[in-house]
């Protein structure tokens, strides 16, 4: 991962939630889990924009599923965290853990 690609907190949350969702990486469960597990209720616009940004950075990819029932004939995107996305998460985790170490006493 090039060091100049910045990864924001919201992007991290989205990537982690997508990893947890596994094969169910659709927008609706993603938004639900973000609110349920991370306590972040995102507006629809913000969620789609974040996904767009992650895609531009190459951190997520998607497959298009056609003919899903109850969607009025519209397709569905299944998102997956790419290898570089995982790498970015790993780098971010490392940095965070590094910064955390020694501060446990202060922030307990």
């Amino acid at each position: 991962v090039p060091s100049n690609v910045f990864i924001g907190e919201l992007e991290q949350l989205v990537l982690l939630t997508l990893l947890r969702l596994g094969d169910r990486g659709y927008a609706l469960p993603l938004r639900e889990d973000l609110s349920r597990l991370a306590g972040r209720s995102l507006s629809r616009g913000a969620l789609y924009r974040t996904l767009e940004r992650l895609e531009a950075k190459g951190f997520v990819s998607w497959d298009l599923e056609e003919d899903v029932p109850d969607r009025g004939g519209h397709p569905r995107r299944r998102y997956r965290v790419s290898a570089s996305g995982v790498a970015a998460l790993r780098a971010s985790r490392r940095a965070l853990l590094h910064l955390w170490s020694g501060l446990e006493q202060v922030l307990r």
Partner: protein
Amino acid sequence: MTARHTVSPPQWIVRWLRRILPPGSAGATILGDLHEEYGCVRPGLRNFWYLWAAIGLSLGASRTTRPSRVTAFVTRDVRLAVRSLVRQPGYAFGAILTLGLGIGATTSIASVVYGSVFKPLPFDQAGRILRIGDQWGNVPPTSLSSMSVANFLDLDERSRTVERFAAFTYGRSTISGAGGARSVRTLQATPGFLDFLGVAPQHGRDIGAVDPSNIVLVTDDMWRASLGGRPSVVGDTILVDLVPHTIIGIIPAGFVFPGEPELIRPLEWSPSRRANRRQRSIEGLARLAPGIAPSVALQEMNAIFAELASAHPKENEGVRIAGMPLTEWMIQGARNRMAIFAGAVSAVLLIACVNVAALLLARGERRRHEMAVCAALGADRWALAARAVAEVAVLGAAGGLLGVLLASWGVKVIVATFGDTIPRASAIQPDGTTLLAGIAATLLASLVTAVFPAAQAARLTESLRATRSGLPGRQTLRRVLVAAQVALAVVLASTAGLLLNSLWRLGRIDLGVVADRVITFGLALPPARYTTPESMSQTFTAILEELRDMPQVESAGATTRRPLFGGTNGTVRVVGGKSSERVEQRAITPGYFDTVGARIIAGRDFVESDATPGRRAVIVNDAFVRGLLDGASPIGTNVTLANSDVTYEVVGVVSDIREMGPEAAAPAGVYWAAGSAGPSFTNISTVTIVVRATGSPSSVLPIVRQQLAARDPDLALEDIATLESLWSRRLGRDRHTAVSLLGSFAVVAVVLGCVGIYGVVALSVQQRMREFGIRLALGATGGRLLGHVVLEGVLIAVAGTAVGLVGAAFAARLLGRMLYEISPRDPATLAATAALMLAAAVLACAWPAMRAARVAPIDALRQE
């Protein structure tokens, strides 16, 4: 079938979203996600939810595009407007409340009118369903008479333009169970009735062609309220008229049909009924074949009827067939009323807009100086206009929100209060339509309101010459606006006055009954238990005796129809004299006349011995004596009923009762004693019991119920009403509804008009303080100034009232038949309205006028 059940969001929002969402699969995915969620939202809220989500997405989308003039308006002007309104909470509150009330009233009425008149019926391709019926002679084609079974079956067989037919009849049944007996409205309908309408049962199935007769379909309401709302009740048995019936299906929620039936039972005909052309008792429906116009189908059906008339001239001479779209039939008679409501409420909205516009203008006057400074410093006039518009936008949005909230409550209040005069009332509730109507009303209100202040700001060519209190005498536009408000208020008040006057005239008519303390109810004896005419007659007699023994009951009697609601007429012939085909006929018990308050004019009332088989005594009314006996003494005269030769002896004459309502004179009438040789109760399993209480009639009811339940727990009371309420129903519930709605609108309008006058006069006084001070200093008296100021307000009111009276004369024509013995231009009513408006105007001027008169010259001069 399934296509009807999949839900899809409003297409206009989808189209709008397509335009603002990114192209390609990104946008399509978002649409799909929204669609999926839409399906999970509660049906009543779905469309709100979708619109809300779309607005959210559109705000997000606009953030990514470059800032435009619109964005500048939103971020700068609206923010400024909000700030300036927050600084003047009183003014903002007044304006928002006024707009909110106007928008709320308009939105409520629009929702009710839409739900009742324009909303498509919840039937598949309802436009293809015609309500058909016999049409006799010259009666208008809108009144459909019942058809005979044989004619109906012939139509069914021969018609090519009609895909299929259905028939139904109305009735009542008693349902008994753990909670006691209850009388319900029923519909008997031909097999496949729900399928005919294009409605799928939510559980169970439709009535089939080979079903037994003891099955029922129940409505959603009844299923939820009385049967626990479990799908498993399909297949259970309930007691209908004491006979076990199997529930075969549950009708879906939102089903509407005239008469609001609670149960649907199969309508079947014996072979003799199928061949009967004389007995006309069924109501017809026809679903036209695709692409066939109603007129074409009616033409074909009439051709078939012509064949039937030549084949069976005795039964079918002079009968045609008439029909109208089912929707049309269901809302008959409501259009006019709805037009009146819509007109009245539009006037209220207009007044509210004009009021706020006038407020804004006044504010503009005060801020002229500030605006002039802005203009001098280089602000272009459009920027100034944009600020004025922003202020209206903020007020409009807040008022609209308040209005929609008020409307969601108002719709329920209107339906609860006037439900029985509004067709399809049960299906009306606040929904997406309410919201759309609210948005439309808000946009309209904002537009009307914004025009004047924006024009005022844009036309600002005054220099800094303007003093801080504004330029005196530049209020012409405001005066015109306020006068317009007064005119609208006068239109509303005078139409309400005309209606009130009609009601008062109607109320003074003597209907021939003494209505206080009298309660009436229907009582049906289940035919399964009371099998013989004798047992029925004995039961009714015993019930009446028990009632009369109760200390709370002054007198009691029974009859075959509700008092004041006549309509059973037939031929009566005076032996050796005249005869008439339209003589009102009723069987009654001794004590009936006493109870309803009719007087015996000559001869005697019935006694118990008249009510025995073999006795042939009748009582006629005064109208009968005048009409058929030319005023000769009738006691001892013989008459025959119907077309039989059996003669009955007249034993008494009773005072007239206006059975056909206050507007029609009392019809000639014949009464015979129930249980005597005449046609009696036994033909009809339901009778109406009338009870005069010693105290309040409502306190008698529980005791009566108790007594009846003790006698037979399966007896149910139906159509419980006081005679007073029957009377006021006869006076016209339409009129009551119209008077209360128009009356309340008129009060709001007059108050708003006065607020307008007050505003103009108060501002004018404020601006002319200096002038008044000088005049006082030069010797003018306070009284003179007071008169001067009041005159200013009154002149506006006079101008408005004059225009309003002209408008009122036109508006009153809309009321049409609702007016009773009063001209739409009744001078007394119009004069009273004008006087009321002018008096209110004087009151509105009083406070500013007093301020002007009490001003101390030195203070007034110092102000500058």
